[in-house]
C-alpha cells in the first residue's frame, strides 16, 4: 500500500465526513421541521406527512372528545393543532413537542396522530431546597 494512496483515501473520507458535518449544521436532513420552517414550506409540503416541532403555547390546551386541541409555536410562527390520540404523560403547556401528522388542506391547521415530548438535556432539581445553592445559577 503506497503511503500516498493512503493519504488520498484518508483525506477523501475526512472531506466527505466534513461535508456532512458542515451540511448537518444547517439541519438539512430532518427528523422534524420546526413550526416556522413548516409554515414557510407549507405550499411545498401540501398534505404529506411530516413531523412538526414547536413549543406548546400556554393557555391554548383544550381537551375535546377523542383528542386535544392546542397551539404550537416556534420562530415566531404559530400553528393550531388537533390531536387524535393519547397525549403522553409528560405533555404539558410550555414544553417542546414533536407532532407526527400533516397540514389540513382547507383550514391551515395541523392534524396530529401522535405527540412526542422532546425534552432538553438539562436536568434541574425540582426541589432546589434539597440541593445546596440555587440550581438555576450553575
Amino acid at each position, binding site marked *: *500500500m503506497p503511503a500516498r*494512496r*493512503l493519504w*488520498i*483515501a*484518508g483525506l*477523501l*473520507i475526512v*472531506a*466527505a*465526513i466534513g*461535508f*456532512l458535518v458542515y*451540511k448537518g449544521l444547517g439541519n*438539512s*436532513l430532518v427528523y422534524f421541521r420546526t413550526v416556522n420552517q413548516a409554515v414557510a414550506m407549507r405550499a*411545498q409540503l401540501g398534505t*404529506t406527512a411530516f413531523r412538526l416541532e414547536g413549543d406548546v403555547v400556554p393557555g391554548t390546551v383544550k381537551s375535546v372528545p377523542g383528542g386535544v386541541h392546542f397551539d404550537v409555536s416556534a420562530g415566531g410562527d404559530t400553528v393550531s393543532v388537533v390531536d387524535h390520540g393519547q397525549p403522553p404523560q409528560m405533555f404539558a403547556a410550555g414544553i417542546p413537542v414533536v407532532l407526527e401528522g400533516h397540514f389540513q388542506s382547507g383550514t391551515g391547521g395541523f392534524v396530529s396522530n401522535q405527540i412526542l415530548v422532546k425534552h432538553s438535556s438539562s436536568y434541574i432539581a425540582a426541589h432546589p431546597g434539597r440541593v445546596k445553592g440555587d440550581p438555576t445559577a450553575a
Partner: protein
Amino acid sequence: MLSDARLVAAKDLRIEMRSKVATNQVLPFALVVLILFAFALNQDPPALAAAAPGLYWVAVLFSALLAVQRSFAIESADAAGEGMRLSGLDPAGIFLGKAAAVAVQLAVLEVLLAAGMAVLYGARLQDPAMLVASAGAATVGLASAGVLYAALAAELSVRETLLPLLLLPVLAPVLMSAARAWQDSMSGRPGLGVPWAELLVVFAVVYVSLGVVVAGPVMEVT
C-alpha cells in the same frame, strides 16, 4: 491501480456478457420481487404507488446482494481467485474493477426495474435528473460496499448466509437515503431530496476510499 481496475472490470463484464447469469437470473429475480410487492399490496393501489420508491430500492438491494455474490462466485471455479490474487494485480485495482463491473450491471438493472415500477405500480417518474443523480450515487455506494464485504466472505463455506447479515445493515443507509430522494423527486419536490442525494454521495466516497485502503488485507493470499 486504475489500469488493473479496467482490466478486472472488462474481464468481469465479458464473463457476464457470455454467461448471461445477470440477465437470465438476477434481473428476473428483481422483477419477481417487484411483482411480489404488488401482490402483497394489490388491494390498495394508492398505497402501492406511495410506497413505490421504498419497494423499488429494496428490490435493487436484494439484486445487489446477488450481484456481488455472483461477482466472487465467478472466481471460485478452477481457483481463479487465487490466480488473480497471485497475478500481481493491485488489490485496490481488483476492488475498483469488480465494483465498477457490479455498478454497471446494477445500473442496467435499475433502468429496467424503474420501467417495471412505472408500469406495475403506476408510479410517476418525475424529475429524471434528480432520479438519475441519486441512483448513480446509490449504485456506486451499493457496489463498493457490496464488493468489499463479498470479498471478505468469498472464501467462507457459509457465505450465502453470512453475507446478508454483514452487508444489509451496512447498506441500510443507502436504502433509506435513496428511497427518500426518489420519494421526494417522484412526488414533485426534488428540492427536499437534495440532502439525501448528498448523503448518498458521501456514502459512496467513503466506501470507495475505505475499499481502496482495506482491499490489501481483505484480499491477502491466505
